[in-house]
């Protein structure tokens, strides 16, 4: 196996994970125009639910995965109803919403650490024993293959949903102008609530997949969120296709970057990319 094909494969897998976080983040930003920093914790909630239901209680794996995604979705929905909606009603600035989400992130992450300790844990019992496939001269594990397939399925499903349903059109209308959407009879609070639910479910799935691929720890949400944020901004904030594009660009830059530099600088490389974009193209690749 050559190093370049392997790096390309790794970049694509990283890109798939990041895009799952980025599309939810971008969707929420589009509808509400604030950076929801609590979004990453949904990934940790997903991962830890599967850890608890499947590994600790020994329930069926598929059931645990469904519960994990549902739970992440419900908590995301709950945050909107309890915190963000009252703030929106009061026409609070984006900064107030951002600080509130920072608070929600801090509190939820610490609660997870209290419940499950802050140690690194694995979900799947036998990581070394899973099937390995060879593609174009690089290797990919079964989990990583599942990551790719589910990311592509989710992206395609979401794209269809946004394009062809009334719900998708309502989201687009709210993203363009919330006030006008209200006037034409769209129940914006309900739609935004659903957006939080869907975005959080997808983030929960991302957390579960990362959990199977490497493992879980309470702070996993933060690093995933950071990557999702970078991907969204690099791609073009508020546009989910931009988010996906940014996610794969980030995956490639990171993986080729650590090939030349070294692994510990991964986060710094990612933020370097963000800052380059903030300076030279703050609206992202897809400029709208």
């Amino acid at each position, binding site marked *: 196996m050559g190093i370049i094909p392997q790096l390309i494969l790794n970049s694509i897998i990283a890109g798939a994970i990041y895009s799952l976080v980025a599309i939810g983040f971008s969707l929420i930003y589009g509808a509400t125009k604030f950076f929801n920093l609590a979004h990453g914790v949904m990934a940790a909630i997903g991962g830890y639910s599967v850890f608890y239901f499947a590994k600790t209680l020994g329930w069926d794996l598929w059931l645990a995965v469904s519960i994990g995604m549902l739970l992440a979705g419900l908590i995301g929905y709950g945050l909107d109803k309890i915190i963000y909606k009252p703030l929106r009603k009061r026409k609070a600035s984006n900064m107030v919403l951002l600080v509130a989400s920072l*608070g929600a992130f801090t509190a939820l992450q610490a609660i997870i650490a*209290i419940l499950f300790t802050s140690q690194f844990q694995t979900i799947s019992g036998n990581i070394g024993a899973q099937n390995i496939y060879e593609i174009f001269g690089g290797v990919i594990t079964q989990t990583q293959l599942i990551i790719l397939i589910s990311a592509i399925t989710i992206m395609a499903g979401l794209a269809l949903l946004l394009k062809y349903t009334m719900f998708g059109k309502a989201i687009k209308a709210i993203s363009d102008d919330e006030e006008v959407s209200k006037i034409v009879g769209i129940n914006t609070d309900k739609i935004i609530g659903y957006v939080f639910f869907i975005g959080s479910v997808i983030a929960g799935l991302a957390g579960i997949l990362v959990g199977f691929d490497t493992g879980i720890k309470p702070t996993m949400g933060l690093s995933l969120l950071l990557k999702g944020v970078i991907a969204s901004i690099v791609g073009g904030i508020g546009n989910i296709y931009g988010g996906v594009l940014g996610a794969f660009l980030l995956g490639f830059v990171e993986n080729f970057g650590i090939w030349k530099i070294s692994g510990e600088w991964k986060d710094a490389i990612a933020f370097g990319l963000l800052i380059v974009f903030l300076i030279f193209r703050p609206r992202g690749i897809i400029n709208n």
Partner: protein
Amino acid sequence: MEYLIHLAILFSIYAILGISLNLVVGYTGLLSITHAAFYGIGAYATAILLTQSGVGFLLSVILGIILAVLASFLIGAVLSKFDGDYYALGSFGFSVIVFSVFLNWQSLTRGPLGILGISKPELFGIDFSSNFAFLILSLLFLIAIYFVSKFIVNSSFGRVLKAIREDEKAIQVFGYNTLYFKLAVFVMSAAMAAVAGSLFASYITFIDTSTFTLMESIFILTIIILGGLANLHGSILGALFLILLPEILRFVGFPTDIAVQMRQVVYGLILILLMLYRPQGLIGEYKL
């Protein structure tokens, strides 16, 4: 009694951090989440100089300030082009990059192992190794920084900062180059944070990377938002409150590792509740 002195020293260090961050967040309206980076630069400058060279405490403080000024100049030059949530996000990014440097430049900072055996300060032949003497020293620094900050915010320079906060475009029309003002206040604030870092390193005599994470920046932000933005007394009040709060939690009697996480939960909830019910904090003069 010894313990009260310990708390008072921590209070004065965090009050310095709060006052200096308030210049940027409260007076200029720029939500910076990277304060712990400059706090860390000061701490590492003192730690490295005091353990590896014969340089005295005062010189190490000055060197820490110079390094923080250089770093904040580079970071601020990028950040000052933004405002609002993009500023917050960019500063978030720099916080991660600086943390990576602390963690990975192991030949200098010893990364997660930390630096041990930092000596207590000695100034002008006076020995500050007893806790009481150190308290006097840190209070002197606090008072000095309070008056410098007071001078800054009451000067014509300070009025321009507030004008930038209220309406950046309008003040630009009057011919002020707001970029310089935003950069200048950011650099001043970083220099003060470095002083707090030097005090911390020399007081605790041991530092490692875990002190200068994003969470620390969020903690300092909580101090100033709780106390009140654009009010120097507010930052002092906030620091006092949040230093004493864990002591109240201590009486509840959680095990240590849970108590640490409990504190994060409380900080998170404080941020959320403030945003919902009192965005100007206890005695703030500006709402985000």
